[in-house]
């Protein structure tokens, strides 16, 4: 086995160099936006000739953008709050059921993450239209929860598979009903996976644009929807400022969670 990883300086330099290249390839498109956002010019130009914070001022001064930011953050939070408990319960049943039934349920549950987003959005549009829910926050929430449940399950299923189910039976025999056994025994021990699942669900909603474009409207427009719309109408560095902020939020959330996990 060991010969597969020759431990000499040359190969280590090569490995580091290669990793750095991959990192650059992954990060540069994101990072290139950052200087753009501080440009003083009216156009997106790289590198900017002069720097200013004017595009951030535009963003924070815009009622439309602020409403969208609020909508997105609320929607992300709600999505996580709904999708993670539902996902946990679904995963518990899949874990306990076993056999063909579990495979079937798991398959159905994971389809939203496989089906093209546009199909899901169109389907959802008709379903919600019949209920007169198009354009409502609730409508978008339903869509985002459907997308976030499989994401949460992918994190939670393996964690539950490692969990010693006898503990739940022990708790039950000691007098705990289902709710208390789940809340007192499973949740505290899976808290790291639950935190990851919450984060992933939150980010799924934050990032989602197709369903938002179809379902959300007016005051309930989400950030990604507004970003697409504004790109179509006018290209100015506001969008770069927003992207930078957006990236900063996501990085901050991920950092906070990973650092907490380490400690």
């Amino acid at each position: 086995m060991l010969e597969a990883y020759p431990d000499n300086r040359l190969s280590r330099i090569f490995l580091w160099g290669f990793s750095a290249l991959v990192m650059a390839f992954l990060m540069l498109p994101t990072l290139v936006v950052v200087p753009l956002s501080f440009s003083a010019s009216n156009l997106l130009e790289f590198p900017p000739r002069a720097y200013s914070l004017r595009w951030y001022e535009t963003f924070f001064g815009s009622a439309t953008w602020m409403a969208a930011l609020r909508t997105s953050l609320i929607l992300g939070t709600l999505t996580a709050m709904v999708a993670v408990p539902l996902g946990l319960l679904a995963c518990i049943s899949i874990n306990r059921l076993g056999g063909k039934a579990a495979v079937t349920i798991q398959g159905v549950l994971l389809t939203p993450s496989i089906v093209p987003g546009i199909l899901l959005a169109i389907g959802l549009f008709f379903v919600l239209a019949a209920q007169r829910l198009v354009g409502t926050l609730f409508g978008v929430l339903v869509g985002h929860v459907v997308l976030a449940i499989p994401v949460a399950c992918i994190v939670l299923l393996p964690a539950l598979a490692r969990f010693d189910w006898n503990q739940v039976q022990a708790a039950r025999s000691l007098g705990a009903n289902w709710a208390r056994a789940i809340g007192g025994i499973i949740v505290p021990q899976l808290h790291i996976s639950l935190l990851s699942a919450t984060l992933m669900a939150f980010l799924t909603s934050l990032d989602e644009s197709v369903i938002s474009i179809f379902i959300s409207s007016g005051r309930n427009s989400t950030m990604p929807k507004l970003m697409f719309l504004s790109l179509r109408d006018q290209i100015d560095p506001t969008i770069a400022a927003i992207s930078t902020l957006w990236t900063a939020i996501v990085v901050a959330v991920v950092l906070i969670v990973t650092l907490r996990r380490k400690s």
Partner: protein
Amino acid sequence: MESLPITIDSVSKSYGTYVALDDVSLDIQAGEFLTLLGPSGSGKTTLLMALAGFVRPDSGKLLLGDRDITRLAPNKRDIGIVFQNYALFPHMNVLANVAYPLALRKMPKAEARRRALDTLARVKLEGLSERNIAALSGGQRQRVALARAIVFEPRVMLMDEPLSALDKNLRETMQYEIRRLHDDLGITTIYVTHDQREALIMSDRIAVMNSGRIQQIDTPQRIYDRPSTRFVAEFMGEANIVAPGLVRRIDGADASRATLMIRAESFHLDEKLVGRDGIALEGTLRAKAFRGENWLLTLALDGGGQEVLVCIPAALASGCGELATGQRVTAYAPAAKVHPLPETIA
């Protein structure tokens, strides 16, 4: 605290076509220590889990006292369970584990703490109450599991091979302590094991299970000396099952016509140690082995060559060392130790 009798009435359970419990009926008296003994896969855990409420019987009834608990939720049964892997809660310390059932019952914190500490003292874990579960040895975990199962004064205790993960010495200590705890508390207890010595040492009565059925239920001594089936005879120790024709009465009277069960250690090589109504088996010595406290001889009986195990205590076996294989040997057993197997009596 009042303990309750348990009635298991014609309980059956199948998994697909596999019958895990086949019409099991069993009455356990209040305060009794009953052991379910059987080989792997015989349905012991399934029966225990049916009592605990985690396996729903396909048919039959379970009664606690005169209350039907067949459909009662596990958390309403008030049954203390010790799991084979202990199933302690690793995110709580020792005290919190033991106080958990009390907290569920909304007992005031101070009283719950006092009760939990008392119970920990009872299982000799004073001073470990603030430890993490991960920092306990196997034996200590076992004791925490015991404390957690008795702290809420359940009226029935179920234990599923609680000692199988411990080494031999610790196992023997714990056998004694669990039995003592049972005697102190008087809780009706069903204990599962596949170790027949453990069952003999600990139980008031033993129920021997095989393939989802109870083969025999009796006191340890009767299970050992008077097994009702060949399976029980062989499962409980070195048993010889001998056809009636191969046995000769010492006094010349007619020998039994049933198949006989004679334990290896019931034999003597000296006729004088056996009464006139005892029996004799004649054969040639096939093999001999010194096992410390005894010698194990293998005889091939005259007339068919069936092999019989003869176990002679080392203290009485001065001559065994000189016996040579191929030599003719007669083994004698007293009448009281010769047991006609009921299942073979037509």
